[in-house]
């Protein structure tokens, strides 16, 4: 080879751009609930994997809460060993197809990637998604190494990412694991909250199915605190340890006039109707959902983006995100904001709702808002929005979705003796997830408040380690 071609080869490698992920065009996708990005082809995955420098001291790994061996799995992808790459990820991450889709990678692994300092970071999330999908579609189930049965029994309350991760870890250690779920389908927010166009339910089901193949039992339709109490799980059902991964599912309202008008939804109700109950397929499915023409969504997190994009797909003509701070403070993932904008969602920033106005049938018809400006930083370190006097205005709307957050459900603490909670109702634990009650651990949103899938998984993993030690010491 000539010097020239070798040189060009090298610079080509350096300059190989981050591979874009093909996706449904916005005009098309706002009319369906199919997944937006299509995922990488094997060729694109090979090209993207070849960008990784396989750093000796990788910046990506410490930025991953479950410490996936990122350069390790990417090397395997680069060699075309897709199944091996999947097994590598699964060593520490039990929900790769989920994380590859919904993790805020730009704040996590990809934020640490050394390539990102000068160039675009490796698309770690997209590669993770590719590998997990490839494995699910082409691989055959292989039993991972399992410890011999210990005879110890663990009850997991809640089947969100925290509970699922913990169940997977403990069953592999030889313990008997049963998950109790209040709803009729396991998966937590992955099933009832995050829409199909972002996380197909088939994928969540496949992950749950994998756990069942490992021997995890799942009992749906059991509301712990009502159908069974935590104390009964120990005393009557004979469990040796209990993990509470019940999420932070209580919707927060703004407490402004008109909030109970017809057409004013909590994001939880709106998304649960659409996702869990499949109201977007009404009347083939029985659960109805109201279809707004001019929809406002209050809040600017992932939940708000999901609500707004769902409203659009259900047939809204205009959808507005109304948020009291500015663009820089919007808590949603960059990709979700980008997708929402592409789909034509309008952002009314620095705007706060004051009250809802209704018609004589009790339906919302407008919302009074006030413009805001940013003042001094508050406790969260963000500049506090303050209303501009006299800037009130009326926004016509026939549906409002309140997506300003959730808090802890008091159901379990109020029916469980000796379980300490903090002033917001979240369960208090040490760093291993151990609660004030003997034999009880907790993790995920019910401990931290609304956070992310990967942090909930990290909490499940830590608690699994601690529960295993506890069980083996009994």
């Amino acid at each position, binding site marked *: 080879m000539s010097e020239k071609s070798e040189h060009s080869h090298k610079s080509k490698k350096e300059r190989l751009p981050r591979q874009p992920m093909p996706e449904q065009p916005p005009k098309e996708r706002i009319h369906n609930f199919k997944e937006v990005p299509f995922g990488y082809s094997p060729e694109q995955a090979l090209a993207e994997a070849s960008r990784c420098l396989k750093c000796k001291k990788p910046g990506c790994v410490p930025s991953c809460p479950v410490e996936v061996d990122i350069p390790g799995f990417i090397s395997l992808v680069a060699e075309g060993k897709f199944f091996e790459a999947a097994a590598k990820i699964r060593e520490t991450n039990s929900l790769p197809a989920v994380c590859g889709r919904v993790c805020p990678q730009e704040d996590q692994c990809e934020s640490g990637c050394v390539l990102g300092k000068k160039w675009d970071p490796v698309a770690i999330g997209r590669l993770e998604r590719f590998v997990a999908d490839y494995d699910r579609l082409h691989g055959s189930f292989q039993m991972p190494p399992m410890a011999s049965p210990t005879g110890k029994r663990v009850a997991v309350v809640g089947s969100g990412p925290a509970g699922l991760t913990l169940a997977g870890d403990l069953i592999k250690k030889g313990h008997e694991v049963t998950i109790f779920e*209040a*709803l*009729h389908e396991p998966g937590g927010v992955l099933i009832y909250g995050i829409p199909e166009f972002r996380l197909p339910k088939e994928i969540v089901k496949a992950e749950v199915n994998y756990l069942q193949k490992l021997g995890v039992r799942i009992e*749906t*339709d*059991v*509301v712990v605190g*009502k*159908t*069974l109490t935590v104390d009964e799980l120990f005393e009557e059902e004979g469990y040796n340890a209990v993990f509470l991964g019940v999420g932070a*599912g*209580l*919707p927060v*309202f703004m*407490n402004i006039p008109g*909030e*109970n008008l*017809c*057409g004013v*939804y*909590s994001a*939880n*109700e709106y998304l*649960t*109707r659409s996702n869990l*109950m*499949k109201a977007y397929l*009404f*009347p*083939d*499915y*029985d*659960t*109805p959902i*109201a279809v707004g023409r001019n929809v406002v969504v209050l809040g600017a997190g992932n939940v708000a983006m999901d609500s707004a994009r769902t409203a659009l797909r259900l047939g809204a003509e205009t959808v507005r995100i109304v948020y009291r701070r500015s663009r820089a403070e919007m808590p949603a993932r960059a990709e979700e904001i980008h997708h929402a904008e592409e789909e034509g969602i309008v952002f009314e920033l620095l705007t706060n709702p004051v009250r809802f106005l209704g018609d004589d*049938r*009790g339906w919302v018809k407008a919302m009074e808002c006030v413009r805001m400006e940013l003042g001094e930083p508050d406790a969260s370190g963000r500049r506090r929005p303050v209303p501009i006097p006299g800037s009130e205005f009326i926004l016509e709307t026939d549906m409002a979705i309140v997506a300003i957050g959730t808090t802890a*459900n008091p*159901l379990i603490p109020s029916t469980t003796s000796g379980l300490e909670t903090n002033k917001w109702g979240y369960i208090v634990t040490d760093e291993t997830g151990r609660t004030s009650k003997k034999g009880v651990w907790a993790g995920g949103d019910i401990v931290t408040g609304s956070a992310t899938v990967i942090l909930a998984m990290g909490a499940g993993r830590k608690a699994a380690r601690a529960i295993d030690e506890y069980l083996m010491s009994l």
Partner: protein
Amino acid sequence: MFEILEKKQMAQGTVCMFRLKAPRIARKTRPGQFVILRANERGERIPLTVAETHPEQGWIRIYFQVVGKTTAMLARMAPGEIIQDVIGPLGVPTHVDKVGTVICVGGGLGVAVIYPITRAFFDAGNHVIAIIGARTKELLILEQEMNSVCHELHVTTDDGSYGRHGFVTDVLKELLEQRKDVGMVMGIGPVPMMRFLCKTTQPFGVKTMVSLNPIMVDGTGMCGACRVRVGGQTRFCCVHGPDFDGHQVDFEELSKRLMMYVPQERESYQRFQAEVAGGSSR
């Protein structure tokens, strides 16, 4: 998996009783609590009150009125068939104290809902007066059962075909005028009836509890669909109720919220009726 053990149709087929196998729920349910059930894979989640339980044999009894697709579909199911999901018990049990004299009022299907509560007040040693009513004789349900759990039973029909001609509230008003010892009134029925009942008791200053029936989804406090305004405050009926102080309830808001899905419900019911008709003619 929740098996239908027994089925009975009553009130000219507009009301149906199921005995369902649900051992855990049977053990836990107290009067005033309800379950949420989903008939099948594509079904809606609907709340129904538990009217009776048998903890040892592991079953619960529910009554439902056929008003739309889900209840119509349920009414076509037979013993031995399986209800996909039954979740509960949900809600706060009715607060049952010894208060002296209690009047329990049930209208229409509300009789089934008030039946376990009436029994609980009776068992707690109260003097229990029950008033039950229906539009017409054939629609009256559970008269015998109610009779066995109270000291005094009054029956009314709107058209005078049975019992007293008139509304349950007519009898209630008379009783309140006659006796000064009524400690509490509990009323359950259609929203307009509960609203009128609270109006009736208001001048007498008698504590009046009602069991509300807003639209629900999860029943565990997660969605906020079931919010009702009580004493100016928003409450979630599924976790704070279903019983509330009737004099504090914003019935107008409740009525409007109950109408939210009428067009879709109608569409869904009509489709179902057409399917059923098409299926049976084949």
